[in-house]
């Protein structure tokens, strides 16, 4: 039951966030888009309407993308002439230990940003789907709030929580008699990456939960009734009714949170600058670091292009899997 109209088609009625349509997914489904009702009669004036948007888009997105690819095939320090090196920068990403590590870290962060929030959201919604919750709107407002706050602010606040002296996490551990666990969370060689990752979990869990809560509301009560008549308990009910009907929402949540994990720059820059050592460095941070701190512009561009390619592949992949499941 997916409607292809946007939630806003009717004037004045805004959108209970019901039809969770994966924007990227829809965008990528090429066949469907082109077979939609042929819009309007032929009109050359269409080009005029598109021209201003296209001009600025071409200048500030398409052209830079082309230059980024071009840079990535050279070595350049920003001053001396560029030198053509072919694919060497891309090989360097695979060869260099620290860069491989940075990409590895981003996979760990996907667990914290995407897998964990979606799992938590599903567990919670499994508990919640059996009841009408009063005050749901208020809960939704609060749970969604971390999504809205600037990530720089989020990072500043969590730095205070993780601070070695007077940080509220260490304070808390001291008070409950776990003082031995106190540490400089963001400076700990083994735990810093997880500490950064947990911030992502905090940001993303609300998004997942709110998505799933609104998805569950669209599942017809009759499906649950039928399951219960068949004698399904809460667990069977979840796997037979809730989970399959939330496929679209799960795809949206996974896509948004995975992209956020891969593009994680603000949090790392503010909390750890990639440290201690190289322990929390991630590709988005290395783009900045290599290009604007170390003058390895070609290599930085190659990291950026690789990151873009990863985002493209993962978005396609998630869309594909959720589509196949539905058919």
């Amino acid at each position, binding site marked *: 039951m997916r409607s292809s109209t946007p939630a806003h088609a009717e004037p004045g009625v805004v959108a209970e966030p019901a039809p969770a349509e994966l924007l990227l997914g829809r965008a990528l489904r090429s066949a469907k888009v082109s077979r*939609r009702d042929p819009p309007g009669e032929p009109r050359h004036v269409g080009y005029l309407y598109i021209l201003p948007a296209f001009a600025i888009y071409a200048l500030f997105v398409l052209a830079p993308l082309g*230059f980024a690819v071009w840079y990535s095939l050279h070595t350049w320090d920003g001053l001396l002439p560029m030198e053509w090196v072919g694919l060497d920068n891309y090989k360097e990403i695979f060869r260099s230990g620290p860069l491989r590590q940075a990409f590895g870290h981003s996979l760990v962060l996907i667990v914290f940003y995407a897998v964990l929030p979606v799992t938590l959201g599903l567990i919670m919604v499994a508990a919640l789907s059996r009841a009408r919750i009063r005050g749901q709107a208020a809960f939704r407002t609060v749970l969604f709030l971390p999504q809205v706050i600037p990530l720089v602010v989020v990072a500043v606040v969590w730095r205070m929580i993780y601070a070695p002296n007077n940080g509220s996490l260490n304070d808390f551990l001291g008070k409950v008699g776990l003082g031995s666990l106190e540490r400089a969370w963001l400076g700990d060689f083994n735990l810093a990456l997880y500490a950064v990752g947990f911030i992502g979990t905090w940001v993303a869990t609300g998004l997942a939960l709110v998505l799933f809560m609104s998805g569950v509301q669209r599942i017809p009560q009759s499906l649950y009734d039928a399951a219960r008549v068949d004698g399904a308990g809460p667990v069977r009910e979840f796997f037979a009714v809730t989970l399959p009907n939330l496929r679209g929402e799960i795809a949206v949540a996974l896509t948004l949170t995975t992209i956020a994990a891969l593009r994680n720059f603000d949090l790392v820059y503010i909390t750890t600058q990639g440290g201690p050592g190289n322990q929390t460095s991630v590709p988005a941070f290395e783009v900045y670091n290599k290009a604007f701190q170390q003058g390895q512009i070609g290599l930085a561009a190659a990291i*950026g292009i690789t990151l873009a390619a990863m985002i493209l592949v993962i978005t396609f992949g998630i869309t594909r899997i959720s589509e196949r499941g539905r058919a």
Partner: protein
Amino acid sequence: MISRGEQVLNYAILTVFAVIALYPILGMLLTALGPPGESTGFGIPSSLHFENFRDAWNQGHFSTYLRSSTIVAVSVVVASTFLSILSGYAFGTMRFRGSTVLFYVFIAGLMIPLEALVIPLYFKLRDVNLTDTYWALILPQVALSVAFGTFWMRAFFLATPRSLLEAARIDGASSWTTLWRVLVPFGRPAILTMMVLVFMWTWNEFLLALVMVASEDLRTAPLGLAFFQGQHSSQLSLLAAGSVIVATPVVLLYIFLQRHFIAGMLSGAVKG
């Protein structure tokens, strides 16, 4: 029907997660109100110091940062909304050669992360002396928002009843009049959702500002906060007050227009 116990469990779960979501935010507020120079570890402060906000505003130059952010965010929202309405209108209601290909070129922009573009943007804008100006912050973000906006508005125009268009045409309205007199008033909710999302993305953007801006006058709110933290990391109450100031505009907007935020984000909206 579910049991009373399960009902209680439901509220318990939601409450726990709501507390976790709120704890850092309330902690920041409490720290911002605490005595300067005394760290309370997110506890209740011994006395209230609203002057922290004034001090952050003046000493921390947050008035400057907020002004920059406002100029940039409003410009990006206004320009990208106008351009997206025009292009979405063409894609959604008109047929012309190459429209499908052109549309794909636009939506490719949804998947291109700024991280991949920021290096050439910096060097090319530097070549034309546009780095360290508002233009360097506004133009790239308009371009990225236009990719999303075109997609969003096309979907809206595709869904408007054909009869509206035909009625306007029979009345002899030009395509321009039809758009602004008939369709745009009809599409206010969709347009507002788009504006709210673009505002949030622009307000919260950090990397672009970090790369493009050198002079303090032009720092946006997140960038200003990052510098403030670098220089005054020991003045926790001022830092917290600054954080509250930076987050407040977008949080206020969220509180008043939250349906738009949630509806937009839930539809899977992303900006490159």
